[in-house]
């Protein structure tokens, strides 16, 4: 065929899928970032119709508008919530085990970390609501199909137990108890029960610590956002790894080296899990993995990886010195924050561009049609089209 002029005969119309119709006008706004092909048969007549053959290059959309709605969640509040929930969740498990293995300083630091992280999580989550005063409506039903409902029933007891453990720790300090006794005069008489109450609270918190760290991955994966939904089986492991890196790192930074051994091991295992899992998120899902490499998300995730790997290196080599522990812990926490922010940004980017919604769905649809055609004993894809529809 010669240079395309736009007035090729329409004799081929019946065999062209979509009968040759395409959006009128010069530059086709419905196909952003489309690579123009020269002499590609049919001029501007058959562009999107050939999408069937080259799905990754072309797709149709409504004036380039996004199909799904972008999440309305606040940034950085929500990614910070993911980070804090992970750090607090891991810390609570570390705290409980430290209580019973004779590591009082590690137990104290882990319980404070968990308590502060959990309380901040509650504040961030309520602040993110459009109607914060209705926070308790979260607890009027229980729905296993809603990760946010399940999450509310994880966060509520978790924050209660962690703040109880951390609060009792505070009351065990003489000046705090004296101050608190002014408001609640019966408190000093309970002082004997404090250690038992604290340990019970720490165990209760630890029971919810793991789910607290990973449910947030389901929260974002259970959406129509392409780059969050596609890696739905890997994101919980990214979050688990990132949570261990953060929780292990923070408690390691706060605790003298002779008690911080478990934190170091947790942090290093977390880094290994996170890096392995996020590699699959970033490379295993075709076009939907793309947003993890581009723009703000790509920058954040590259920085996150640098911090995480650097933090792990410092921890492994210098973790047995106090300065090394602090530096490694800070790097790991920073890496975890940026991992969550990068994943958040990648999802936002994938919601915004219709190609991440259309192309995977079209591929899925065409695979199904080809399969139906094969079953029906015909190899004509257009036959299949009408069969399936």
């Amino acid at each position, binding site marked *: 065929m010669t240079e395309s002029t*736009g*007035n090729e*005969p*329409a004799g081929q119309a*019946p065999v062209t899928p*979509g009968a*040759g*119709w*395409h959006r*009128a006008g010069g530059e086709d706004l419905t196909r952003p970032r489309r690579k123009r092909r020269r002499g590609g048969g049919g001029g501007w*007549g058959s562009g*999107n119709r050939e999408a069937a053959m080259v799905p990754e290059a072309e797709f*149709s*959309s*409504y004036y380039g*508008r*996004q*199909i*799904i*709605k972008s*999440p*309305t969640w606040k940034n950085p509040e929500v990614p910070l919530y993911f980070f804090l929930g992970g750090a607090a969740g891991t810390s609570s498990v570390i705290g409980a085990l430290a209580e019973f293995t004779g590591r009082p300083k590690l137990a104290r630091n882990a319980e404070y970390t968990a308590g502060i992280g959990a309380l901040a999580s509650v504040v961030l989550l309520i602040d*993110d*609501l*459009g109607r*914060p005063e*209705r926070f308790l*409506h*979260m607890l009027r*039903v*229980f*729905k*296993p*199909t*809603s*990760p*946010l409902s399940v999450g509310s029933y994880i966060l509520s007891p978790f924050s209660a137990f962690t703040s109880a453990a951390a609060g009792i720790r505070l009351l065990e300090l003489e000046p705090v108890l004296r101050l608190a006794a002014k408001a609640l005069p019966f408190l000093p008489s309970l002082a004997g029960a404090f250690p038992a109450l604290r340990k019970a609270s720490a165990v209760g918190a630890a029971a919810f*610590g*793991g*789910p607290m760290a*990973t449910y947030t*991955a*389901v929260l974002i994966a*259970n*959406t*129509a956002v392409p780059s969050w*939904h596609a890696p739905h089986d890997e994101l919980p*492991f990214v979050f*688990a790894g990132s949570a261990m890196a953060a929780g292990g790192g923070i408690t390691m930074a706060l605790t003298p080296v002779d008690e911080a051994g*478990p934190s170091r091991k*947790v942090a290093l*295992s*977390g880094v290994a*899990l996170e890096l392995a899992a996020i590699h699959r998120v970033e490379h295993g899902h075709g076009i939907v993995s793309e947003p993890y490499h581009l723009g703000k998300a790509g920058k954040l995730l590259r920085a996150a990886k640098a911090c995480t790997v650097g933090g792990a290196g410092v921890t492994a080599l210098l973790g047995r010195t106090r300065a090394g522990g602090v530096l490694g812990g800070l790097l790991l926490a920073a890496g975890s924050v940026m991992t969550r922010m990068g994943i958040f940004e990648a999802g936002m980017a994938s*919601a915004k561009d*219709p190609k991440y919604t*259309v192309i995977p*769905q*079209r591929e899925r*649809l065409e695979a199904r049609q080809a399969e139906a055609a094969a079953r029906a004993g015909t190899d004509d894809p257009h036959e299949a089209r009408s069969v399936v529809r």
Partner: protein
Amino acid sequence: MTAVSSASPGLSKDHGDPVTGNRLYGPLPDVQGEAGYETDHPARVGFFTDTSVCIGCKACEVACKEWNTLPMDDSHGTRDALGLSGMSYDNTGQLGANSWRHVAFIEQSRAVDLPMPVFGRPGDDRQDAGQPVNPISPQADSTLNAQTSVLNAESLSQFDPQTGQSGSDKQIRWLMSSDVCKHCTHAGCLDVCPTGALFRTEFGTVVVQGDICNGCGYCVPACPYGVIDKREDDGRVFKCTMCYDRLTDGLQPACATACPTQSIQFGDLDELQARADARLATLKGQGVETARLYGRDEDDGVGGNGAFFLLLDEPEVYGLPPDPIVTTRDLPSMWKAAATGAAVIVGVVASAFVGRRR
């Protein structure tokens, strides 16, 4: 817990789909029953939007805004802003918290053979001049008959703005389609709502209770169609209710009432489905190769739509996802991964405390 649960039917394995063991996806013959209504509930209702007879008048949009007192917004959903989209006659732009009907407008052209005069009807792809076959089934109702006798008449076709010829070498058509909430059989918004603000009505539709919604926003990215959205200054989410208030009073939804061409048809869902199948057969018989039903198939990713469409091009051309799947279909696998991840954390931490002291 109330008798009518706002919890979705998912995850209970007792009397679910015998194949999958759950009701998170797939056909659901009695959505209201699954939601906890007694067997004497009304029939499931819906919209059949036949875009082949839509004239883009936007009466549905206006009626919807008027009836539901929706605030003004621009084509990006910014409230109280007056703005032109700059892309077409469509200045509504999208469905959102303030626009529950949205008329899409797409101008298309195709090259035609010069020596052969072509008089097209909506989406007409015929190249020969054979008599149009009219395979209307005997049980076709008056609506269908009206559409086939008037709107597809040979005499009208050359004046039809949807297929008028502009110039000698190309043909122009306008696609217009009134989009709306699909009221899915498996509604992602309903599944993920943590407060029970979204619920299944006795008519099988999906409605937000404004006095319950706390604005968590989870339903917004959960909708595979991008229908529901948050009104930022209000804090809560809003979407089409299929005029729940009118339905309970025995009235049709405002948009269907206002539609002058019966492009928007309201009725019992099974009746609409039969009507749509007949309409599709009519159009196919007339050579409209590109006609297809969207959201009609109960085996699709959302178990079929309560509001479905007859389209003349691929869904994505109208801004609709070509193969939507309710996100909760994969939720059991996600919970499994999250539980494993949580166990890994506990296991790793526990093993870190074992062994060497330091």
